[in-house]
């Protein structure tokens, strides 16, 4: 059986604006020759500093844009070779959760409407029962469907976004910094929810983050990006316990909670 998601040597370049008449500037390589394979039920973590190409990779997988080189195979089909209407059908099987829980819900629609949208997009009329069930699944009450995004807290909003992503029972969930904007305690709630859902549906997850602590808790595999290039790639535990590059080591350092350990001598002032 082929892998659920197979990313083969994708490269994405963005042209830089021309400054002079006869001089075409080098394009910006946002993602350079990245590959990964993800099976059902597994989680692949993508980490890297800002601008390293994490979101670009997620957008390629979601079919929002096409790679300049390489292919993205989803269930064996080349995503970017599918005709527009087929791709729209296929979208039921892979969904996305965005970083910003404030921006990912239309402020002018009741959240129930937004959650039913993936069904409506393919011409189905979402049954209220189905929406209610999905709401309860992510820890909200069915009556919340009538309310508007601004009436919810950040964590609740992210739950709603997750509800929308799972209503079609997808096989792959792409989460782009889905917990980065949340407070520590809320973040834990959402991570727990994602884990529950994964167990329940056998979801595969592509998990974009910059927090290695989150990766440590969640991911089977890990891809470390920097400036679009792959710095390190492999089983998450192996990389975390035995990082091969300075870059990864430093990311690990930054995530450690060690009171003033390596810099300041403990000093008691009152």
């Amino acid at each position: 059986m082929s892998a659920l998601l197979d990313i083969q040597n994708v490269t994405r370049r963005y042209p830089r604006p021309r400054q002079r008449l006869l001089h075409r500037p080098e394009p910006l390589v946002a993602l350079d020759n990245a590959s990964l394979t993800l099976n059902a039920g597994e989680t692949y973590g993508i980490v890297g500093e800002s601008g390293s190409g994490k979101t670009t990779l997620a957008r390629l997988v979601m079919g929002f844009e096409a790679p300049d080189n390489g292919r993205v195979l989803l269930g064996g089909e080349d995503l970017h070779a599918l005709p527009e209407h087929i791709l729209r059908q296929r979208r039921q099987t892979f969904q996305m959760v965005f970083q910003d829980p404030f921006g990912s819900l239309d402020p002018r629609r009741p959240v129930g409407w937004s959650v039913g949208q993936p069904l409506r997009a393919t011409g189905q009329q979402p049954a209220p029962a189905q929406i209610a069930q999905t709401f309860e699944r992510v820890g909200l009450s069915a009556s919340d469907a009538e309310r508007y995004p601004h009436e919810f807290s950040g964590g609740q909003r992210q739950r709603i976004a997750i509800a929308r992503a799972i209503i079609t029972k997808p096989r792959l969930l792409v989460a782009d910094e889905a917990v980065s904007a949340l407070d520590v305690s809320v973040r834990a709630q959402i991570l727990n929810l994602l884990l529950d859902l994964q167990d329940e549906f056998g979801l595969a997850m592509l998990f974009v983050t910059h927090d290695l602590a989150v990766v440590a808790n969640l991911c089977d595999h890990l891809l470390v990006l920097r400036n679009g290039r792959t710095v390190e790639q492999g089983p998450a535990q192996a990389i975390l316990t035995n990082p091969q590059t300075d870059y990864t080591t430093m990311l690990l350092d930054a995530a450690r909670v060690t009171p003033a350990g390596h810099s300041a001598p403990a000093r008691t002032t009152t």
Partner: protein
Amino acid sequence: MIRRAPVNLWIGGALVAMMTAIALLSLVWTPYDHTLLDIPAKFAAPSAEHWLGTDQLGRDVVSLLMAASVNSLTVAFVAVGLGGAIGTLLGLAASAWGGWVEAIVMRLVDLGFAFPALLFAIMLAAAFGPSLSNAILAIAFINIPVFARVARGAANQIWTRDFVLAGQAAGMGRAALTRDHILPNIAAPIIVQATIEFAVAILAEAALSYLGLGAQPPMPSWGRMLSEAQTLMYLAPELAIYPGLCIILAVLGFGLLGDGLRDVTDPRLARTRA
């Protein structure tokens, strides 16, 4: 901080509602038939029969102002509605499809801005004779590029929002996304722009009437009354004052309404630091 929004909205809304009510009322009732001439009784002073007196042809000024409100408001509504609808659609299309669609629309918009609107009106009047409907067409034409630009700008911002991307991830096409997400979310700036353009339209009709290109007799409009009363400034200044006041009140009404709507729909304004 004083919360201004409700004040604007209240006064503006009340003015506009009053104007609209008067206009609607005039369709079924005015004190006199506004086309009724009584030349011997011209320039009558305000009295119990003629609350604001009569004009240079002995017509009842109140009736004229009321009947004129219909025309002035019709110009505003139809011209802005038409121009706004076309412009918004163009702007939305440009924003949704980008590429050559956008290039063509924006070229047209540039052209629209570059071509002085008043000249367009003059030419239209030269071609088909001056009339209210031509004035409406000309004002609608002015509005197309305005709304196209506003709609495109606002829509471009919405397109970058995650919920649109989420809709796309859900399998929605561009047209559906535009209908479901973009249009409702740019409604606020469009409506605000519309109230501003209403005001502009009323003034534009007045300016066109001044040049003899607006409403034609016996159809009264505030602009026409004002331009006809120009030479009467020495004789019966009130005939220039009344329609002028009506225009000011209507424009003020729409302007305040627009301001108020902007304040209400802009959540940031609600908690401004002083």
